[in-house]
């Protein structure tokens, strides 16, 4: 039996339906992320699990019990907020002790538990400080400790890192994951940052328009996106218009250049198609290739991104920043090789949103 279960959950604000019949099972001890752009319903879903919003329809079950109408203070769920929400009038120690005091634990037990938590977040020496005397990262660690201290049934995190600097974000992300593993606590994490979701989660639920578009392990989501939206939202994706040449043989043309998709295509010859190819799927040279001139060379740290103009269209290709290899210069003609199985072929109208996203990028780079 799943530990946390959402059954056909709907949430409307007035006439606006934000969550549209979402169903989900979360196993005990699992780390699940809701990933999606703004307005996709991820935060609303989390807030319904927390009890701050009541579902318009459907039900939410925790450990087999229906909590849909239970007040948030009776759900025993730990929550971490984007803006920390520490109590400004209390020291770090008293913030962490708050939930324990409310539940009427013994004083000695509270002290012991708070010390344990301070050690877990490595903030023992800050126990007597007030929130405004701490950095953002420290405040969020205290907020995490405060949420975990009450031994909640599950931990809910609402974009906990988005107010922090990039470096602290990565560090705290790893800390959250370590603590979660150590305690084995069921965790639901809301974020709009795909790298965060992919690196931290057991499973990622990509959300769009109030529904889960795809749910799966991070590798699955990245390597086998189920829908064009997921493909475009996760990582960078080239969308290249093409024309079917010989559908039975899987050959298509991109601006006059013929390339093989390696499999039978369900299309008529001459039909307009759309190819989706990840930048890292390209290599320089190879038998199955697109030719073009280098428009831009971008260094992204460990990755070098070439923007190549193929038939007047900007195509991004990524390679490792390997000092032993020569990087093509701007204006040079290169062949971008790609394995046939790395090409996803779809009809253009199946990916309106995808085309929009990447076209915008294409214009910028061309």
């Amino acid at each position: 039996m799943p530990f946390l279960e959402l059954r056909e959950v709907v949430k409307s604000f007035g006439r606006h339906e934000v969550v549209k019949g979402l169903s989900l099972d979360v196993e005990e001890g699992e780390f699940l992320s809701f990933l999606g752009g703004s307005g996709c319903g991820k935060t609303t879903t989390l807030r319904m699990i927390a009890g701050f919003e009541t579902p318009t329809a459907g039900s939410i079950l925790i450990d087999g019990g229906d909590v849909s109408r239970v007040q948030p203070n009776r759900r025993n769920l730990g929550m971490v907020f984007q803006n920390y929400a520490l109590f400004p009038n209390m020291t770090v120690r008293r913030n962490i002790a708050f939930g324990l005091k409310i539940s009427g634990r013994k004083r000695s037990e509270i002290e012991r538990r708070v010390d344990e938590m301070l050690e877990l977040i490595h903030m023992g020496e800050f126990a007597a400080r007030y929130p405004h005397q701490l950095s953002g990262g420290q405040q969020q660690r205290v907020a995490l400790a405060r949420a975990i201290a009450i031994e909640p049934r599950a931990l809910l995190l609402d974009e906990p890192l988005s107010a922090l600097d990039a470096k602290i974000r990565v560090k705290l992300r790893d800390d959250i994951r370590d603590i979660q593993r150590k305690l084995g606590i069921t965790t639901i994490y809301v974020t709009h940052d795909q790298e965060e979701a992919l690196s931290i989660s057991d499973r990622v639920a990509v959300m769009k328009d109030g529904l889960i578009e795809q749910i799966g392990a991070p590798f699955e989501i990245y390597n086998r996106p189920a829908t064009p939206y997921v493909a475009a939202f996760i990582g960078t994706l080239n969308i290249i218009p093409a024309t079917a040449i010989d559908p039975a043989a899987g050959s298509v043309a991109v601006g006059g250049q013929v390339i093989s998709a390696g499999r039978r295509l369900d299309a008529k010859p001459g039909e307009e198609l759309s190819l989706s190819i990840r930048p890292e799927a390209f290599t320089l040279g190879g038998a199955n290739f697109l030719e073009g001139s280098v428009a831009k060379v971008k260094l992204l740290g460990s990755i070098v991104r070439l923007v190549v103009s193929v038939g007047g269209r900007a195509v991004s290709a990524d390679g490792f920043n390997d000092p032993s290899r020569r990087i093509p210069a701007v204006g040079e003609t290169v062949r971008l090789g790609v394995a046939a199985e790395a090409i996803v072929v779809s009809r253009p109208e199946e990916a309106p949103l995808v085309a929009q996203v990447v076209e915008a990028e294409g214009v910028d780079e061309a």
Partner: protein
Amino acid sequence: MKKRSGLSWLGLCLGLVYFFLPLLATFLFSLHGKKGVLSFAAYERVFADPQFLKTFGFSLEMAVFTVLAGLALIVPTAIWIQLKVPKAKPLIEVLALMPFVIPPIILAFGLIRSYSKPPFALVSSPALLVAGYVIIAFPYIYRSVDAGLRAMDLRGLSEAAQSLGAGWPSLLFRVVLPNLRTALLSAVFLTFAIVIGELTLAVLLAWPAFGPYMALVGRDLAYEPAALAILSFAMTWGSIGLIQAISRGSPGQRSSLGGTH
């Protein structure tokens, strides 16, 4: 740049002179209670008048009740509106302007007409006076509390407290009120200042309050009203100093006097 800062200093000095000169003159005048010498004779006479202590005591008592009733009524309302019905905010804003728009004399006659006959024969009860004072103090209390609430992310804190198991009483007494301390103090002192000096309601409802006493003294005597004016200034400034001292004493709080005017 230098010229500008010189000008602003000049402006400040002029402002201070404009403000302090009458105060200084009043103070000096109040020291002339005994002919020919500077003395505190006027102050001695003020304190010696049994009416002074009696009326002041009465107004103080009314102020305490007004503060208690006002806070009990307005603080939960302001919190509730901020959290649950933010749409009602404009309505409350308009209501908070009413005591400025409706003159106290209208308020007093309204109260007398409405509550002088059964089933609401309250006109001889000090409760009616307190009720009137609550109305007059409402904008000041509401604005202080509202500013305090807005400064503290009420929604975030209340959700955090709820997720940690806190119900409404815990939320109110452990989280919201401690963080509202400065705002509440300024509401309390403003209410005191208003009630202590209030004239119209006290006169029309016929209560021996401090306001009517001051008016009476001002009509009949020369030096004592000056002494009373200086005394009330001293009390007001003492109160403000007290707010500052107390709010500085709480290290967890950013010192912010609720913007009330």
